[in-house]
């Protein structure tokens, strides 16, 4: 495949978030560019997602991790390396650091961003089940102001979301998570491989289970969660899970494998988080 000629591309370079959202409102079909780890793969193989890009990378106001009120607020440009190194992430949502460690390898972790993972909207995005299980909130900004959308209501279909064309993801807010956190990515190898199945879960009186790569979007297993909360046995919960996931055959795996592994992960989550102990992966 031929690489895209860069001369056919245009990069707009706002100096502030305010200028960036104005450009998003005033210019036609701008594609926000953060770390570039997804967009440049498409450009390099001759399938650019568009011709005109909005450079966010220099907007330092979109970086950083801080506690705001009860929540942990993570700026959209926060890289996987930032997440791995963050004491606050380790304290509030250690499974987000676990997921970040399994994204690509160090070169990608140094550039890929949490906001980019959400915006790219791949059903296989490694951080997405974690944000789903943590019931995170996506903070969107436009010229009209900020709006907050529950992450579990953010995607509407395969690579579709409620985000409007003039909005930018500026942060993700993570409310306090009670219970034991658990994360597991299953792929061909630890580094670089895109997941075949990825699960993030929280063991609590009302358990939370989120799965990636088993449906057109990352999904919460509401029925399985309800069954477990009502005291169902693992065998019963597995039946509910198998009726709930909607995996497909694709280049990385088969639907049958994904169903089997999803059920195995449920069992592993449940046994790993049984009994006393502190939150961990």
């Amino acid at each position, binding site marked *: 495949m031929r690489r895209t000629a860069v001369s056919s591309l245009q990069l707009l370079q706002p100096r502030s978030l305010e200028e960036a959202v104005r450009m998003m409102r005033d210019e036609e079909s701008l594609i926000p560019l953060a770390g*570039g780890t997804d967009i440049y793969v498409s450009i390099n193989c001759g399938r650019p997602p568009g011709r005109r890009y909005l*450079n966010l990378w220099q907007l330092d106001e979109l970086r950083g991790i801080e506690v705001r009120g009860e929540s942990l607020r993570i700026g959209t440009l926060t890289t996987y390396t930032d997440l791995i190194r963050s004491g606050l992430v380790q304290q509030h949502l250690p499974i987000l650091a676990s997921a970040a460690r399994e994204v*690509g390898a160090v*070169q990608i972790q140094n550039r890929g961003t949490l906001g980019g993972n959400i915006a790219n909207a791949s059903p296989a995005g490694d951080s997405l089940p974690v944000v789903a299980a943590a019931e995170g909130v996506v903070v969107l900004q436009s010229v009209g102001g900020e709006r907050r959308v529950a992450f579990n209501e953010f995607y509407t279909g395969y690579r579709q979301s409620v985000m409007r064309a003039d909005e930018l993801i500026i942060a993700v807010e993570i409310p306090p998570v009670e219970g034991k956190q658990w994360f597991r990515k299953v792929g061909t190898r630890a580094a670089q491989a895109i997941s075949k199945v990825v699960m993030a879960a929280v063991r609590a009186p009302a358990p939370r289970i989120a799965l990636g790569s088993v449906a057109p979007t990352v999904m919460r297993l509401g029925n399985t969660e309800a069954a477990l909360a009502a005291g169902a046995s693992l065998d019963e919960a597995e039946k509910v899970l198998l009726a709930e996931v909607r995996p497909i055959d694709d280049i990385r795996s088969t639907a049958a494998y994904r169903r089997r592994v999803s059920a195995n992960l449920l069992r592993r989550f449940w046994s790993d988080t049984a009994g006393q102990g502190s939150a961990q992966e």
Partner: protein
Amino acid sequence: MRFRLNGSEVDIEAHPMKRLLDVVREECGLSGTKEGCGEGECGACTVLVNDMPVCSCLVPFAHVEGARVVTIEGLGGDHPLQKAFAEEGAAQCGMCTSGMILTAEGLGSNPAREEIKTRLAGTLCRCTGYTAVYRAVQKAKQS
């Protein structure tokens, strides 16, 4: 656009979306940085930006404005990692070598074998089988 390349201030004109890989090779004439897969899987194009290894095939030139960029040429030739790679036979075709060395550069002293393997998990070699590579890194990082 100004940035630091291998310790010197440079002012290079290129399209802001041009890949850092191509700017380094074409505008700066430094061919030690290789293109492998072009999708961030193989690590052959690794350079350091502000001391962090990145795949230069995925970095737009605009993103290194004011940054410190180091390519394999920036290590000189007598760097402990370069010497250890030569001594241990850790390079065959050489395609992955600059990426291997620049990625390994960020490891602390006396790294465990597992630590080296994780660090180099995104720099693929199709000739050496990695054993000599890990040996060379261990040797260079011994304190």
